[in-house]
């Protein structure tokens, strides 16, 4: 379903992704683990046509997202690490806009919006403006929106960040159900080791833009002779704490938050 070969992304002198290769099978749940700044989000951005790779090849659902972005875009849904909703629109309007951009027929759009919003328990808030939502509610709405066009692949970039255990649990229940019934391929990144261990069939550990290990959580533990996946992760990536430079977007969000108070 996803096949990546020798993928490289350079920003000036800095190499964010440095020759990454991996395969994700049809219907597989695949996790990308790595410290901050390891290149996880950059890889997702290249897979989802947001960034152009410096070199290397990607095959997504049988097509090349660089050469034919629209076909690739129809095949996947994505839940970003940062919010990507329009705060000035209502929950329903956000869903509608997405449905129209993805050519979902209007009758189907209504049915699925209802079903998905009921699932994430936002149906009774469908006409509220998104800016009135809490962080967790926004996240749930984004998940519902990402699934609206029934994608073959769903990318989730740290999807459960800031969610309470109840929401996290029900979200994965739904995604696993979708994975089983519709054979949706799931590709996600996370910092929660127990999440990767519980959900993912295979895990790739990335650091400094390279994949340093791939396998099931069992095989990773065996390989490093560790008790838990967290120990395996630490023994592979070291204990040094990484810093990520704040992007202008982060700085702006900070200011915005202060300003709104």
């Amino acid at each position, binding site marked *: 379903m996803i096949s990546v070969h020798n993928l490289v992304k350079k920003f000036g002198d800095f190499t964010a992704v440095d020759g990454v290769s991996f395969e994700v099978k049809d219907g597989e749940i695949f996790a990308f683990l790595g410290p901050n700044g390891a290149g996880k989000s950059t890889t997702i*951005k290249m897979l*989802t*046509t*947001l*960034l*152009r790779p410096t070199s290397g090849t990607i095959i997504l659902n049988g097509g090349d997202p660089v050469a034919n*972005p*629209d*076909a690739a*875009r*129809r095949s996947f849904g*994505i839940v*970003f690490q*940062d*919010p*990507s*909703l*329009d*705060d*000035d*629109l209502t929950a329903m*309007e956000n869903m*509608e*806009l*997405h449905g*129209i*951009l*993805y*050519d979902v027929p209007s009758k189907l759009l209504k049915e699925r919006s209802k079903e998905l919003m009921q699932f994430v328990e936002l149906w009774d808030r469908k006409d509220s*403006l998104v800016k009135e939502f809490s962080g967790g509610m926004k996240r749930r709405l984004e998940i519902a929106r990402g699934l609206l066009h029934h994608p073959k692949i769903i990318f989730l970039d740290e999807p459960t960040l800031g969610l309470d255990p109840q929401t996290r649990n029900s979200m994965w229940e739904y995604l696993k159900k979708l994975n089983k019934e519709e054979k949706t391929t799931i590709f996600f990144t996370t910092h929660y080791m127990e999440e990767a261990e519980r959900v993912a069939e295979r895990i790739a550990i990335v650091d400094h833009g390279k994949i340093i290990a791939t396998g099931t959580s069992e095989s990773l533990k065996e390989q490093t002779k560790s008790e838990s996946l967290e120990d395996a992760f630490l023994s592979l990536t070291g204990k040094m704490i990484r810093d990520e430079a704040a992007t*202008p*977007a982060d*700085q*702006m*969000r900070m200011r*915005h938050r202060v300003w709104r108070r």
Partner: protein
Amino acid sequence: MKKIYILWLRQIKKYLRSKSRIVGSLAQPLLFLLALGYGFGSVFQKAGEGNYIEFLAPGVIGMSIIFTAVFSGIEIIWDRQFGFLKEMMVAPISRLNIMIGRTLGGATVATAQGLLVLIISLFFGFHLSSVGAIIPAVGIMFLIALLFTALGTMIASLLDDMQGFQLIINFLVMPAFFLSGALFPLKGLPKALAFVATIDPLSYGIDALRFLLIGEVHYGLVRDVTMLAIFTSVFLLLGSYFFKKVEV
């Protein structure tokens, strides 16, 4: 088509929902009409130029259009900072169509704002030469609005954050407004200033509005519309060129 429409509709909804923005952006034109319109009225009259409010109103309408339009274009920076741009960029819609939908939306909003100022200026003693003139005038307003929304889009594509916003307002939008003949007649200007006015697209927009609304003209309607159409096409092309290069 439907995709462009929904992006257009989004701009309209956002505009109608931000009452503070509508009211806020009326304050400046009101101040200009009040302070300059009445303040310079008698001087203008004594110089034999007639009623200053009549002369000024099309200029102030132009001002409110360009400020709203540039701001609409620049809103792409907000979309980027708050993430919605990513949602549009991963959707199966071309960059060009995103740009078209947004620009039409922004231009519609700016035209509405201009129309609102036109109505308000009637209460300040502005007289239309004929009511029917409003229709072609709205067309000109829309052209001005398109031009400056595209300009805003171009700037937003080149900027990372809102830090540069003030710079743009002071070095681009303010000069475009003040040097366009919005506030003073273009005839008898010093050569340098007259030249600057000829390369300022807003000069043609306001000149055309004056012709349609009060029957006064400096360059002539044909030249105005031609120049405005050329500038608008160029900036639409530039806007879509730079927007295509945006990475999120």
